[in-house]
């Protein structure tokens, strides 16, 4: 920022509307992939824990160790293997979703009262029917609460992936805003990340109420 330059330049927003829109799309796309893949992996792990409860501790332990690796280091440590690709970014982002998603899914399944399970078995539900019609509906609020946390966390982590060229709005924050000392771009990026995170969080809360209208604000 040169002396005398205004702190925020609105005309930059207008001139770069298409670039900003593209970065918003990229941010959402990278986040969506991470959450969907993280969800599927976590769900598979949670089903294994449902079957073999002893696996809970090792799964959560490994997820916790992955989560403890600083993100800047994680992106870099993968570069020799997967290079500066979107795959590198997604491996890291997915790894970070696991700790919250697996924990909440296990907690969700554990929240199903034993007598409810017994009643389902007594009514002749098969294992699959019991899972889909009894356990998942009861676990949904806790699972969605996990997805909400994972989504907001991932939105922030994506910006750090700008270091390896897959940063979404992080490109505005870092590559334009910080490296060229142009606060307009940084502020734009930050405001959009926070606004989109809040929007996604709100949307997921709404979705949870739709899915389980009988539950109250339990997920909050």
């Amino acid at each position, binding site marked *: *920022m040169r002396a005398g330059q205004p702190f925020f330049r609105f005309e930059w927003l207008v001139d770069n509307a298409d670039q900003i829109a593209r970065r918003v799309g990229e941010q959402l796309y990278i986040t969506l992939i991470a959450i969907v893949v993280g969800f599927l992996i976590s769900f598979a792990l949670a089903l294994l824990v449902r079957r073999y409860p002893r696996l809970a501790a090792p799964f959560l332990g490994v997820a916790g160790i992955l989560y403890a*690796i*600083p993100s*800047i*280091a994680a992106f870099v*440590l993968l570069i020799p293997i997967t290079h500066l690709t979107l795959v590198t970014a997604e491996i890291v982002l997915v790894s970070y979703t696991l700790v919250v998603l697996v924990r909440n899914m296990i907690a969700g399944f554990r929240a199903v009262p034993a007598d409810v399970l017994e009643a389902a078995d007594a009514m002749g539900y098969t294992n699959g029917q019991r899972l889909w019609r009894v356990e998942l509906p009861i676990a949904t609020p806790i699972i969605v609460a996990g997805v909400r946390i994972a989504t907001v966390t991932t*939105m922030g982590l994506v910006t750090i992936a700008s270091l390896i060229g897959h940063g979404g709005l992080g490109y505005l924050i870092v590559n334009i805003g*910080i490296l060229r000392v142009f606060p307009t771009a940084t502020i734009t990026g930050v405001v959009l*990340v926070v606004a989109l995170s809040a929007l996604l969080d709100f949307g997921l809360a709404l979705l949870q109420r739709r899915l389980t209208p009988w539950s109250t604000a339990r997920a909050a």
Partner: protein
Amino acid sequence: MEFLGKVAAWYVDPAQWTGRDTLPELLGGTILVAALSLAVALLIAMPIGLYIGHTGRGAQAAVAIANIGRAVPSLGWMGIAYPITTALFARAGNGLMPAMIALAALGIPPIVTNTFAGLREVDPELREAGRGVGMTERQLLWRVEVPVALPVIMAGVRSSAVAIVATTPLMSLVGANTLGDYIIAGLNLSDEVEMFAAALLVVVAALATELLFAWLERRATSPGLGGGARDRMTGAPLQPRPAASEG
């Protein structure tokens, strides 16, 4: 394997140990930036957390602010602080100021929320007992509430410290002298050995912080608190005393 050999060689390469911005300097810079930022975060977050926890006032506002704070990426704090500090102090200096602002902002929410949550969880009967023996509010806070809540408070300090150390290398983007210098240089020059070697050090730094604060957390737990009580001679866990409410 050959790659890891090169990484090992990087650590002992004299280039890392002589001249400007040596490995010890950048490691020291990382620790300095992280420690100062944690100190600032503690100075701001502790009084707020203690006030809210003791009085019960403003808890909702604090949680709301903490949640917003968490949603703002650490890079965002840094990017906004950078031009402000540059304008205020005429030149960018070594990036210490924007780094400290960004890292303190990152470290404040866990300390505030854990401090007030820890104080809130103190058994109301203990508080009543304290008042009953004539303690002032200040004495109640420092002699009853804080000691009982200390493990929870320290857990907040630990997650704050780990988050700060893990994020400190990013502050090289604004010119702070940290291990991130190697990572950014490595990315710019496509030097995979250098960035990998530095990233490993960042992992070790975060892990060391985790272990250090976990140890402090154990030290801070009063032996009188449930679960932590151990026989002084044998170190074996003592039988838990019956809860006061059952007596």
